[in-house]
């Protein structure tokens, strides 16, 4: 089986969907001639031409708004907001327009829009490029939110997102762009709203997203040597969240830890914790824990980030303390 990077898996996904469906198009800053600020759309302009693959001005609000209007009128646009840190400039189009249009107009419009965006968390480039705001969009009814942690998932989720008739916020980790995986060519569709159990285990459930999935697996290996068997769940879709898979696991392990690169208060971990507590309280032997960076802006540089972010060691330590 061929090997693909996370980045090329995404390009493949978009290319295949553009081949399959002429209504799919791609808009964003530097996505066309330059092939993406980080190479995430290489070759697509050549393959599909300047009508369907376009460089936009640095106008985040209209990038999102073009997507909304185009999706309401028959296209399936993929619009790129280079970094999720820039969402403060275009959230109105995302949460008031894209998310609510189907609802407000009683189902008269579909909104097959993908907002492709990324975070450079742990790449050391400072406070305006290192944020993960999945909780913001998770708080909005009408949006779907996905965050792939592996190349194959990146492909399968992107293809499913493009085919979905609802607005999907698609969050990439640039720090995973070069991650490689061997997987089959061609049609891969990963249904939105379906978690993956990355590793089975009986002693504790770790729910980890994005960059933290691999670290949780690494921690699980270490712990396994000591006889602690961790189950690692990657939700893949942040909203709607596959809480059933998580609950099923927690009912077996009776303990849960959520690990994210995003911040704790009002974050993903709080949501998962509240859901587990509400729905599996009497199965819990200990409170659900959240392991996240401390509640600060993200300073510049990998030194700070290494200190602030969870790693395999701190995850393993948290698991031990949870079992203590």
């Amino acid at each position, binding site marked *: 089986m061929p090997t693909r990077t996370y980045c090329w898996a995404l390009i493949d996904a978009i290319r295949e969907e553009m081949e399959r469906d002429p209504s799919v198009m791609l808009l964003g800053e530097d996505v066309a001639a330059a092939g993406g600020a980080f190479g995430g759309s290489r070759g697509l302009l050549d393959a599909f031409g300047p009508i369907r693959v376009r460089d936009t001005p640095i106008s985040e609000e*209209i990038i999102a708004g*073009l997507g909304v*209007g185009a999706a309401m*009128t028959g296209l399936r646009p993929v619009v790129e907001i280079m970094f999720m840190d820039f969402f403060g400039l275009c959230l109105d189009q995302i949460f008031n327009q894209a998310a609510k249009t*189907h609802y*407000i107009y009683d189902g008269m419009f579909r*909104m097959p829009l993908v907002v492709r965006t990324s975070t450079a968390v742990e790449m050391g480039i400072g406070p305006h490029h290192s944020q993960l705001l999945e909780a913001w969009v998770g708080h909005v009814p009408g949006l779907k939110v996905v965050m792939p942690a592996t190349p194959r998932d990146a492909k399968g989720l992107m293809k499913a997102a493009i085919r979905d008739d609802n607005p999907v916020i698609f969050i990439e980790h640039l720090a995973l762009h070069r991650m490689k995986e061997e997987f089959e060519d061609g049609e891969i569709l990963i249904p939105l709203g379906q978690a993956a159990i990355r590793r089975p285990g009986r002693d504790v459930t770790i729910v980890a997203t994005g960059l933290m999935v691999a670290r949780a697996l690494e921690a699980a290996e270490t712990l396994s040597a000591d006889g602690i068997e961790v189950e690692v769940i990657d939700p893949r879709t942040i909203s709607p969240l596959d809480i059933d898979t998580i609950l099923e696991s927690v009912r077996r392990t009776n303990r849960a830890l959520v690990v994210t690169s995003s911040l704790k208060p009002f974050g993903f971990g709080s949501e998962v914790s509240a859901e587990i507590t509400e729905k599996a309280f009497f199965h819990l032997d200990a409170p659900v824990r959240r392991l996240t960076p401390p509640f600060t802006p993200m300073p510049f540089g990998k030194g700070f980030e290494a200190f602030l972010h969870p790693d395999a060691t701190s995850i393993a330590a948290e698991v031990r303390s949870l079992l203590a």
Partner: protein
Amino acid sequence: MNPDPLDLWRRMMLIRQCEAQLNDAFAKNLFPGYIHSYLGQEACAVGVCAALEDSDWIVSTHRGRGHYLAKGMALKPMMAEMFGRATGICGGRGGEMHAADPTKGILGGNGIVGAGMPIAAGAALSAQVEGKGRVAVAFFGEGASNNGSFAETMNAAAAWSLPLLMVCENNLYAEMTPFADTSAAPDIAARATGYGLPGEIVDGNDVLAVTEAATRAVERARSGKGPTLLELKTYRWGGHFEGDPKAYRSREEEVEWMDRCPLRCLREVLLDGRADAATLDTIEAELTEEVAAAIRFALDSPEPEPSSALAKVFAA
């Protein structure tokens, strides 16, 4: 596009009746929430939409009924929507600021000032990709033209030669604030040149002038030459919403503008050889009754089933 002026008058009268009778309903406490009245601006919506086909798209604002009716939304379901009734075109969940009808190319209103412009540009993008000569129209107020979305839309639409009409209804006020208090330059049209598209000032109370300017802009758009900004100078007869005491302007100013009533202006043209007063009076009487019937229909319609609010968060 050469619309019959009598048709324009009829459509303007429909809007006039709608707005006047809704104000009455509001005064009688029969209306839920705010009314953003379109009284006085009828020539804008009707003039622009006269230049459009059903297949063209419009995006409206918080002050949308004029646009909806001018573009052909059926009166009764529109009216019922305004009252939030189950028979409304959105089942009552959109309300006064939100109605849409894809079969007539009406892509909705908006509660967010300025947010419709990027959406209209997106529809224009669809039109361009489709390549069949459709156009899209963004309606907005002079207040909205101070929002960043206006500039972003002009720039992107011009850069890509999108088939877009940006129609600014400059009615001098944004809520209670006169435009002159928030901008150093009086004309919105002047903002176009710097972004590489034509900007034109039009008498927004003269429906024939509006139709003509819109027709030219639509032709330009259909033939691939790109967007146009039209600034329609007009006046909001009422307050920002019904009940606003209008302390921010003089009664003289109001009278001056009401003297330039768009319906009266057109009536004079029509009476000059195209229609007689009796015909116009008959039409007016018919529309008065049609609107009254629509309001009765709305008031007689049931409130929506509250649990219907739980449906349609996502498309299946």
